[in-house]
């Protein structure tokens, strides 16, 4: 429970100034600013209104996926299926609309339901089947991708207008950014201001201690995976909405981006630590790097190297900082 307490309450007076403490607690945010500053110096195209909106739009899918994943990682689990579940939700939604000839709003809700259901299945396998989450969600990764192919027969399907709206604009503000903000606020609320959210930290900090203090561990586990699936479903709808079509190969490998975003954001894969705001910053770091590399026209061979290095450095600095920090 020690970790829970650390994560829950802001730290009492430690050495160093208020600013120093803020920087130490927000390593990823500092990294994001340094990255932004470097790009601002390197190219005049980076710090422009339209480009910042682009970054927001491009971060939306990964950020929403990563928000859902944050619940799981806080509870000391992992969800490898988020990319596949996103694709399945998008494809299921498009299928309900195009092949099932149902109204668009049913397709929208159906897509979210498919995501939540897939997550719940993983959750039950972990909580009651006692499978390690790595294995359960690895199975779901394959099952969801396979079902996506079965439904689509390997071809893209057009989305409902209600889903496409998610990828469009509301006045001057792009919808993906609105979805990103709303999803982030909801996720942060669940994690910080609900009993279930506090239970997630408790289970992640020490499962046995949580169980002994009366936390319904299995219920918590099912909840975190269901939420992860629901957010993955939303991310899938967002992605297909941006393209006006659900792609069978959509979001392949996105689970790795989502994990990277959560970890860059300061969460611990050992559980008990993690914040939605950190995850958002992590997603922005990944997107800003890709955006910057495009703007600078860096060779595609080098891009993967650079992205890998930034992840390693970001997480490396963060874990060094944690080591020097009293618990």
């Amino acid at each position: 429970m020690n970790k829970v307490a650390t994560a829950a309450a802001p730290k009492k007076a430690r050495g160093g100034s208020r600013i120093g403490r803020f920087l130490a607690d927000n390593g990823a945010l500092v990294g994001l600013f340094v990255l932004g500053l470097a790009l601002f110096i390197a190219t005049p195209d980076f710090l422009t209104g339209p480009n910042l909106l682009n970054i927001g739009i491009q971060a939306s899918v990964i950020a929403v996926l990563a928000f859902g994943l944050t619940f799981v990682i806080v509870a000391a689990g992992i969800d490898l299926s988020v990319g596949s579940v996103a694709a399945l939700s998008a494809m299921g939604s498009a299928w309900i609309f195009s092949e099932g000839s149902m109204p668009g709003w049913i397709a929208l809700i159906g897509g979210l339901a498919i995501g939540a259901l897939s997550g719940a299945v993983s959750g039950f396998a972990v909580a009651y089947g006692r499978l390690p989450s790595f294995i359960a969600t690895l199975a779901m990764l394959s099952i969801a991708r396979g079902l996506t192919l079965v439904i689509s027969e390997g071809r893209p399907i057009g989305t409902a207008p209600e889903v496409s709206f998610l990828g469009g604009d509301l006045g001057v503000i792009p919808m993906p950014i609105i979805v990103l903000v709303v999803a982030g606020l909801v996720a942060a609320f669940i994690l910080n201001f609900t009993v279930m959210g506090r239970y997630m930290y408790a289970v992640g900090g020490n499962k046995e201690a949580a169980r002994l203090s009366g936390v319904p561990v299995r219920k918590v586990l099912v909840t975190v995976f269901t939420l992860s699936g629901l957010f993955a479903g939303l991310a899938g709808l967002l992605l297909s909405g941006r393209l006006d079509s659900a792609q069978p190969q959509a979001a392949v490998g996105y689970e790795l981006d989502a994990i990277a975003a959560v970890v860059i954001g300061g969460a611990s894969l050992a559980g008990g630590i993690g914040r939605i705001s950190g995850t958002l910053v992590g997603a922005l770091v990944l997107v800003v790097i890709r955006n910057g590399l495009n703007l600078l026209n860096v060779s595609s061979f080098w891009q993967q190297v650079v992205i890998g290095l930034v992840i390693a450095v970001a997480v490396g600095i963060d874990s060094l900082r944690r080591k020097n920090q009293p618990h």
Partner: protein
Amino acid sequence: MKFSAPRKAAVLTMSLALALSATACNRGEEGAEGSTSATLALSTLNNPFFVELRDGAEAAAEEAGIELEVVDAQNDSATQTNQLATAATSGTDGVIINPVDSDAAAAAVAPLIDADVPVVAVDRAVNGAEVESLVSSDNVAGGRQAADALAEAMGEEGKVIVLQGVAGTSASRDRGAGFEEGIAAYPNIEVVAKQTANFDRAEALNVATNLLQANPDVTGIFAENDEMALGAIQALGDRAGSEVKVVGFDGTEDGLAAIEAGTMTATIAQQPAELGKRSVEVLEQLLAGETVEATIPVPVTTVNSENVGEFTE
């Protein structure tokens, strides 16, 4: 590690589920009854192009009375190697391989060649192993054709960005090389940026948006496949087709629809169904003891608003 019985059962069920989900999408439709059987080992069915290739091959196999088993490697070289090893031991009469990776495929086909099973490569070559024949589109010529189509639409002047495919794949290399060669003939056209979007529509939407930020005065985009061209069109919005000309590659259903809608200027149509059909025909010839050419080019065609009707039917 100790497992309790129910836990063991759960693990077993899960792995079974895994295995089932992997095979469920692999199983092609049963071919017609026939004495000869063949295996079509595809890199992926997660792409309309290879689905069409499979459909063409299945139709040709049915006509020839060959029982065609289709396996899907899901873009994993190791899976493909295993599938071919299985094919070699299951007594298949011939194999058509669409390699996940041209280099890795050599080891995969070696046991087949040792067992004197004829192997035909389709769409991508097998490097370093003697397959009987390669049936493929001419990607370099296609790249040149794309350059001509784009240059013509742009009035032979202006700035161009190129969306590249998966780095290091032969399709990306050949199309890119052909395009570069072709566009060099137009001195007033400048390629201002080249970036990869990994043949993916969603990624192309992001990458094209980013590149248009850095190069707002671009009037032409060449994408090394239609999926990326469609992502670029999404990024361009109303400007696609009018202010900015987009040329893709592959001639997929969605690509052809974009040409009909006027948002895409041209695409270089490969004929995936024809690739599948030709490869089965070549295998049929081999099984009949005939000799075949080492490379069998399947023509690519420039599709634009004038001839798009012939391809959509």
